[in-house]
């Protein structure tokens, strides 16, 4: 209240009693607080500052917040700095803008408030700016209030709400006013009205404010159950014996999530702190006491060699305790018995039971809606992971799926595509244009690489797929090392164009980054193109004929050698284009491709070799499955991957031909 009066006072007093001169002195006196600012100390400083002229102060605070201030090391005077030439700088007075003197770089230092301090400064600036004529300043102060609303802001907000003319700002102020009323309002009816208004709002801010209303105290304890009647009880807690965490934790947490529990030991500590129970003797303390009572290698006449079991130690200790009048040892089940006469509970900090109940109700209904969005979010996550797997595997769908060539260097074609994107960006700085060029260029480069590889290596090995596997593995490690030698081991940036930055925000729980949407679209596009090429074009027809029966095909006038070469090149080219897309959301390194290779093969195999539809099905299955398992076990993506692979291994046992199996002659493998 005092604070508020001071603000009002300073608002009314035009530039009066306290001149700049005074403020300057004040700053000089407090320069230490400004130079070595900490969010703990800055609060008191900001309170004192309110008595000075508001324009001067707000100008100063803005400079401070934006890291524009410097100080002279010798005198600790706070100044602005402007550059004179390479070696010398001018120090400039903050208020008069007069040049104070020339300095060298080592004479002064920048003042760097940390983000905690900056937040406090912004909050203090609210008082000066919320009624400002400048809309931007008002927006700034509203934004600062969004971070934290103090009790004294309530009145300020009420007034601002009445005065504000800008419609969009008014909505924002209304929202903040609602929050302020909920948290700091004195009238319970008004608060209940606000609660009703917020029922349909599922934003994170609203949930944050509502949760604040439901804050609870520490765990308390009482002997008398009647004590609880007058309190706004949040929860009554029963202590339990909690076994130590052991092996298999990963699997356990896979099935259920842990709830808040109160262990017997902790409960006993609380009870003891509140004076309800005697101090407990722990096993360690017991051991110390025993050790202090050793006489001639014996305790109470028993040889210490026998003390290698806890049961023996406890037995003797309890005897000793009776003699020496100490607390006897009690194990966890006995402790649990002791605790039965006590009641452990938590109370809401909010005193009004009706408000907490109402809040809970509102929060529950909000959470129900939120859950829906969470599932939707999970679904979209699965979709986006599937499209990534699909992109990784799509080239393989042709080279492996259609031609049955095991190309271990497939991952390296993806990598080549990504590096192509990077190199193009080095020369063309417009990211949109560079992408437009990179996609076809990556196709051409990897197409050529694929054709060369087919001519030089794979052509000789069509009869033996296992040999192809080894030869292409050789190519894979050679290409990987070559990329390292050329581009270095550092990850290279492949920056997406600005319009792919950020995300499509539906609400606080559902946002999809544009890049993921783009990858999904790209995946669909690839799928359609591939389907078109394979089913509707002459090339696709010939490819299928060659892979199904090369002898017959060549009798019909198809040149199998040429078709094999082109098909392999086509598959490699597609991998290259996928590489550009993958590089956009992950990092471009020489190992980029090898991360996708095993997964890609599994995608194709699970889906069913020989069918592009199969690859799509495989990618969807793997992508959704992985997200689904991760959802069970949020803290362990590794476990999710392990379980997923085990699932795939089992899956193939039961459907060796994959999800979508070809029928008839085309299904004949080898």
């Amino acid at each position, binding site marked *: 209240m005092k604070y508020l009066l001071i603000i009002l006072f300073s608002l009314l007093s035009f530039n009066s009693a306290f001149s700049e001169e005074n403020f300057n002195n004040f700053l000089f006196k407090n320069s230490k607080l400004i130079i070595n600012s900490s969010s703990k100390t800055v609060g008191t400083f900001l309170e004192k500052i309110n008595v000075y002229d508001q324009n001067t102060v707000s100008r100063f605070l803005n400079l401070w917040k934006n890291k524009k201030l410097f100080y002279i090391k010798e005198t600790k005077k706070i100044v602005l700095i402007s550059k004179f030439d390479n070696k010398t700088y001018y120090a400039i007075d903050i208020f008069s803008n007069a040049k104070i003197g020339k300095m060298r770089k080592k004479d002064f230092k920048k003042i760097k408030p940390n983000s905690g301090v900056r937040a406090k400064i912004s909050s203090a600036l609210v008082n000066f700016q919320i009624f400002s004529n400048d809309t931007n300043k008002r927006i700034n102060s509203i934004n600062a209030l969004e971070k934290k609303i103090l009790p004294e802001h309530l009145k300020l907000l009420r007034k601002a709400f009445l005065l504000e003319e800008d419609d969009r700002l008014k909505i924002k102020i209304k929202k903040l006013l609602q929050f302020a009323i909920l948290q700091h309002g004195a009238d319970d009816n008004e608060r209940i009205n606000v609660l009703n208004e917020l029922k349909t709002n599922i934003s994170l801010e609203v949930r944050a404010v509502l949760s604040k209303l439901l804050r609870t105290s520490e765990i308390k304890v009482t002997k008398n159950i009647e004590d609880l009647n007058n309190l706004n009880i949040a929860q009554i807690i029963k202590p339990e014996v909690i076994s130590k965490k052991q092996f298999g934790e990963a699997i356990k947490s896979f099935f259920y999530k842990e709830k808040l529990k109160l262990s017997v030991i902790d409960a006993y500590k609380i009870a003891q702190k509140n004076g309800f129970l005697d101090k407990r003797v722990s096993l360690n303390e017991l051991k110390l006491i025993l050790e202090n009572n050793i006489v001639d290698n014996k305790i109470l006449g028993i040889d210490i060699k026998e003390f290698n079991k806890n049961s023996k130690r406890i037995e003797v200790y309890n005897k000793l305790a009776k003699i020496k009048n100490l607390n006897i040892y009690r194990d966890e089940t006995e402790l649990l018995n002791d605790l039965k006469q006590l009641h452990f509970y938590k109370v809401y900090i909010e005193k009004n039971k009706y408000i907490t109940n109402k809040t809970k109700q509102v929060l529950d209904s909000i959470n129900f809606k939120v859950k829906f969005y969470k599932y939707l979010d999970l679904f979209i*996550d699965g979709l986006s992971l599937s499209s990534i797997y699909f992109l990784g595997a799509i080239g393989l769908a042709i080279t492996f799926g259609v031609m049955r060539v095991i190309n271990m260097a497939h991952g390296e074609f993806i990598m080549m595509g990504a590096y192509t994107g990077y190199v193009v960006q080095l020369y063309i700085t417009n990211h949109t244009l560079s992408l437009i060029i990179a996609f076809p260029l990556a196709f051409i480069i990897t197409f050529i690489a694929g054709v060369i590889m087919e001519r030089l290596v794979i052509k000789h090995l069509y009869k033996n797929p296992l040999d192809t596997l080894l030869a292409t593995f050789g190519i894979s490690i050679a290409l990987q090392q070559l990329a390292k030698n050329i581009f270095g081991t550092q990850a290279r940036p492949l920056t997406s164009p600005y319009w792919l930055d950020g995300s499509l925000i539906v609400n606080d729980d559902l946002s999809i980054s544009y890049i993921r949407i783009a990858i999904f679209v790209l995946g669909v596009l690839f799928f359609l193109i591939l389907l078109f090429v394979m089913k509707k074009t002459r090339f696709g027809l010939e490819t299928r004929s060659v892979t199904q029966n090369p002898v017959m095909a060549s009798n019909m006038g198809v040149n199998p050698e040429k078709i094999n070469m082109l098909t392999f090149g086509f598959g490699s080219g597609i991998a290259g284009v996928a590489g550009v897309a993958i590089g956009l959301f992950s990092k471009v390194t020489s190992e980029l491709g090898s991360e996708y290779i095993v997964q890609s093969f599994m995608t194709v195999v699970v889906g069913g070799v020989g069918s592009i539809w199969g690859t799509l099905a495989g990618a969807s299955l793997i992508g959704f499955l992985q997200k689904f398992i991760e959802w069970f076990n*949020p803290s362990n993506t590794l476990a999710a991957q392990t379980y997923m692979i085990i699932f795939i291994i089992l899956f193939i046992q039961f459907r060796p031909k994959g999800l979508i199996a070809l029928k008839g002659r085309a299904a004949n493998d080898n």
Partner: protein
Amino acid sequence: MRLLITILFLCFSSLGFADGHKKPIKIGILHSLSGTMAISETTLKDTMLMLIEQQNKKGGILGRKIEPVVVDPASNWPLFAEKARELLTVQKVDVLFGCWTSVSRKSALPVLEELNGLLFYPVQYEGEESSKNVFYTGASPNQQAIPATDYYLEELDVKKFALLGTDYVYPRTTNKILKQYLIDKGIPESDIFVNYTPFGHSDWSKIVSDVVSLGADGKKVGVISTINGDANIGFYKELAAAGVKADDIPVVAFSVGEEELSGLDTTNLVGHLAAWNYFQSAESDLNSSFIKAWKAKMGNKRVTNDPMEAHVIGFNMYVKAVEKAGTTGVDAVRKAMYGIKVPNLTGGTAEMLPNHHLSKPVLIGEILENGQFDIISQTKEVPGDAWTDHLPESAVLKSDWKSLGCGMYNTKTNTCIQLKSNY
């Protein structure tokens, strides 16, 4: 037969030549030049080569030239043991500078302790170790993780913590210490969210959205990231895509420095934090001349980072210690190391403590648009702690090689638990 010839050839080639003149001092450099860790470690190899070159221009040590012996353990942990043995027994190096990951150090440790070698280890690590044969010039948790957490608690008023890390030793142990530390500070266990991801993890959307929704109860959320290497790129990209600003949910990273940021578009990371003992932006004459020399050697685009400074300090200390001891004998040098002081690049001095750790200042920096850090907090020199005070089983342990002659000394029972380390 061909096998035999190869083997004999190998033996001869590894014999080396004896020199009639003053024998050079051999420094073994044990950093991966290929494989996943090459990204970070190649830079350290280059740093060492530059330092050795500079020292040789000054006339070497004790009038003897320094000769670097570079090997490539190829990010393959068992190879660290193999190469360390080769350096110590075949190449007969006087000292080793190397390793990055804790696993690689743990792999080389038994060899070092068996053959009484000397290793300078330049990377921030999880602590809980003090080997007679290793000098730890990087930060231990109390020189990086704990001050950063304090900064969160005191300056940013963070109430909920997300401890995200790559699944290996350093994050595991650091997070264990931090969790206990936070609980001691009164943060309830339910407000601490811990997550581990594999090396090179790239799909961060779920984890980032989990972190964002932690803020649903209105408490300020802070992320403490021990995510290693490449995985950071995807993580920060996803953060930016989720619209998480440093003001809402700050991220403090212990493994992200100038080098890692140079592969990233940093516009969206501005304001996020990192804690180190060194930043390139530190203002001191020593630092500017170091940066100048580095850029002159490696190109203008290259940056400097904390482990490089650790090697600079370690190397300078080694030079001083050899000059003090008058020999390169491991035991003599080790004794001479205690209490040696050399200037930090950030101003102030680093001192080698009897527990084989350094006293160094802790710096916290905010990421700037140009990929550099704006230092917003710098402490006095903090002595490195081998055994943390925040875990009950380690709190009783102490390391003092100078007076107690033990790296794992139980102060409760006054016994030395072991002279070698846990591997």
